[in-house]
């Protein structure tokens, strides 16, 4: 694990995330959100979970980000001003961050370095998905099908 890479990725990710949360133009925010997700995928690569990183890019950039920009397009009359910014939320967010950081730094058992690890191959993940986790996998499949149908029904034109 390279600390220089870590610092660069962390700065890019957090800056993009902050931009996604605060930019006024909705489209810019959605695109920064995509950049932040690439940063998170890079974190996964850094941590040795390449498959999850690729899955994250595949699902979020290829599907969710496209969905978000399409939704922005379909609700276009509302885009222009990102009016209304609730400063109470900012205070709460800063408080949560402070509390979390304080407790993380306070817990000494977390100050460990990563043990050496054999690379996690896609094959191992596949075997685990097909044996130990086969029921969760089926449930997720069912959930996705239900979500697909539900989303379709929700956006169908209302019959009058």
């Amino acid at each position, binding site marked *: 694990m390279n600390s220089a890479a870590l610092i660069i990725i962390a700065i890019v990710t957090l800056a993009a995330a902050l931009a996604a949360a605060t930019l006024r133009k909705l489209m810019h925010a959605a695109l920064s959100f995509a950049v932040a997700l690439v940063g998170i995928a890079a*974190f996964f690569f850094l941590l040795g979970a390449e498959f*999850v990183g690729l899955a994250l890019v595949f699902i979020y950039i290829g599907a969710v980000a496209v969905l*978000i920009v399409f939704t922005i397009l379909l609700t276009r009359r509302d885009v222009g001003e*990102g009016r209304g910014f609730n400063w109470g*939320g900012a205070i709460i967010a800063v408080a949560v*961050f402070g509390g979390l950081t304080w407790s993380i730094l306070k817990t000494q058992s977390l100050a*460990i*370095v*990563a043990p050496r690890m054999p690379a996690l191959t896609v094959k191992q993940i596949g075997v685990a998905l097909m044996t130990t986790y086969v029921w969760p996998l089926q449930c997720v499949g069912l959930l*996705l099908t239900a979500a697909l149908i539900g989303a379709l029904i929700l956006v169908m034109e209302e019959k009058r």
Partner: protein
Amino acid sequence: MTPNLQVFLIVSAALFSIGLLAALSRRHAIFILIGIEMMLAAANLNFIAFWRFAPQPKPPLGVMIAIFSIAIAAAEAAVGLAMVIAVYRHYRTTNVDQLDQLKG
């Protein structure tokens, strides 16, 4: 210097807080969804970090949870955005503050 677990946890906490900021402060429904997705991604980062720093040998439990959570987040985004579109069709707005009626 190799980074320890705390660094990753702090980054994840920062990401979570930014997601919270987006979900609490912005009044546009799509921003709120983006915030929620960001919080979910931060949680995934935590899972992967704890998995990576766990003593050896270990089953890929953290990775599995992250994979399932990504899939579920995708379903959530699909339904959430469909709801945004449906609401927009009905009320002609996506500002959550103006959606305060129970009557359809």
